[in-house]
C-alpha cells in the first residue's frame, strides 16, 4: 500500500483504512474550473459552436430511443404490403406539411395585399426554401426549452439564426449547427425575441418568451397602443432573422397596470405539436 492511503490513529498507532473522500483541494480546483467554463460560456456563448457537433455524436443515442416506437409503428403497418403506396403517402405527407405552412402564410399575405393593393403574383413561394428536419429530442427543461433536429441534406447550407417552422408557423430559430444536427431555440425560450405585427391593429412589437407552457409577453408597448384581445400576431420581418407574415401567437390578455409605464400584454404561443415529428427549417 502506498503512502497516504490510510491514516494512523494517534491513540493506538494502528492504521485506519478509511475511504478518503474527494479532497478539498481537488474539489476547489474543479469548482473554479467549472465556474470559469460557465462564465466564459455565458459571456461568449462558445458552446453554441460545438453543441451541434455534440448532438451529431449523440445522434445514435437519440435514434436508439426511437427504435421501440418505430418497431411498434412497423408492426402495426405489417398488413400494408404495398411499399410503393407507403412511399407515396410519405411524400404526400411531407408536401402536405409544406403546403399547410404556405397556406398559413398566404392567409396573412392575402390580407396585406388587399390592404396595400399589391398584385397577387408578388406572393411567389419557393418550396425549396424549406428543409425538412426530423425531431430527435425536445428538452424537458421548461425554462430552457431546446429542440434537436436531424436535418440531413448535404446540398443545403444550414446556418445559425435560420427560422424553424411547424405547419402552423414560427416555433424558433437555429442556435447551433452540427454536421447534420441542429439545436433550435424555441420561441418560448426566455432569451427568444421575435419582432411581430398584429393582424388587425397593424402594430409592431417584440414578443418575448417566458418558458415552455408559459405565456409570452409583448415588451415595451406604450399605453396608447391599441392591441386587441384575441388578435393574431405574425412575424414582421424586422431584424431580418424571421421571415415576415408567419403566425407566431395570439394576444390573450391586455392589462394596464398603474405602476407600470408599459402595457402588460400576454401572448399565447403556437402549441408545440408533441406528436409532430417533422419541422421545417427556412434556409433562404
Amino acid at each position, binding site marked *: 500500500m502506498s503512502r497516504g492511503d490510510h491514516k494512523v490513529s494517534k491513540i493506538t498507532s494502528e492504521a485506519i483504512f478509511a475511504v478518503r473522500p474527494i479532497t478539498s483541494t481537488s474539489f476547489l480546483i474543479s469548482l473554479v474550473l467549472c465556474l470559469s467554463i460557465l462564465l466564459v460560456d455565458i459571456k461568449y456563448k462558445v458552446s453554441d459552436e460545438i453543441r451541434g457537433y455534440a448532438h451529431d455524436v449523440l445522434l445514435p443515442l437519440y435514434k436508439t430511443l426511437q427504435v421501440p416506437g418505430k418497431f411498434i409503428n412497423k408492426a402495426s403497418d405489417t398488413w400494408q404490403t404495398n411499399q410503393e403506396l407507403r412511399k407515396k403517402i410519405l411524400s404526400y405527407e411531407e408536401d402536405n406539411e409544406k403546403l399547410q405552412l404556405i397556406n398559413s402564410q398566404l392567409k396573412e399575405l392575402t390580407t396585406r395585399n388587399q390592404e396595400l393593393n399589391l398584385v397577387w403574383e408578388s406572393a411567389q413561394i419557393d418550396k425549396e426554401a424549406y428543409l425538412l428536419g426530423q425531431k430527435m429530442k425536445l428538452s424537458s427543461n*421548461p425554462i430552457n426549452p431546446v429542440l434537436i433536429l436531424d436535418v440531413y441534406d448535404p446540398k443545403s447550407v444550414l446556418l445559425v439564426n435560420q427560422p424553424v417552422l411547424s405547419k402552423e408557423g414560427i416555433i424558433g430559430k437555429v442556435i447551433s449547427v452540427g454536421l447534420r444536427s441542429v439545436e433550435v431555440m424555441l420561441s418560448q425560450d426566455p432569451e427568444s425575441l421575435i419582432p411581430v405585427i398584429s393582424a388587425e391593429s397593424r402594430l409592431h412589437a417584440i414578443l418575448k418568451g417566458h418558458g415552455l407552457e408559459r405565456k409570452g409577453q409583448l415588451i415595451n408597448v406604450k399605453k396608447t397602443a391599441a392591441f386587441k384581445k384575441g388578435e393574431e400576431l405574425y412575424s414582421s420581418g424586422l431584424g431580418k432573422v424571421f421571415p415576415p407574415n408567419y403566425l407566431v401567437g395570439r394576444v390573450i390578455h391586455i392589462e394596464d397596470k398603474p405602476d407600470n409605464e408599459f402595457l402588460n400584454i400576454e401572448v399565447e404561443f403556437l402549441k408545440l405539436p408533441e406528436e409532430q415529428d417533422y419541422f421545417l427549417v427556412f434556409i433562404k
Partner: protein
Amino acid sequence: MNTDLKNYSLISISLIFFILLDLISFSQTTDQIKPALFLLSFIYWNIALPERMNLFYAFIFGFLMDFIQGTVLGLYPLILIFISYLSQKFFYQFRPLKFIQQAVVIFLIFLVVRFLIAVDLNDSNPNSLTLADKEYVLKSLAFAVLNALIWSPLMYVHRIYRRKWIKT
C-alpha cells in the same frame, strides 16, 4: 480485463443506461416531473463506491448532460461536483439512515438542483435572479417528491447490480 477498468466501465454503463431512460419523452408536464434517474444513480455510486467515483465522472457526465439538456456549459458539471463532494464527504452518515430519512435528504438535494437550473445565468429577465415562477416551484416540488420516493427501489436495483457484477 483489468478489474478497475471493468468496474469503471460497469459504473459508466449503468449511468449511460439511466441517461437513456431519462431521455425517453412523454407529455410536457410528465417530462418536467419525472424522476431524474441519472442523478439518482450518480448519487448511489458516490455513496456506495466512493473510492471508484472521482471528479472525472462529474466532468464527463456533466458536460454530456449540458449538451442533452441545453443548459449553459459547466452548469451540470458544477452540480455533479457538488453532489459528488457532499455524497463522499457524508456517505458514512448517510448509509445508516432510515429510508425515510434518506428520502428527505434526496428531496432536498433535488429541490436545490431544480432551483440551481432555474438561475437566470443569461440575464434574460433583468428584474429577477431566477426564471422560476409559481408553476415551476410546484413542479419542482413534485419532481423532488417523486425522486425521493423512487430512491429506495432504485437503490435496491443498484445494489443487486453492484453485488452481481462489480468486484471490489
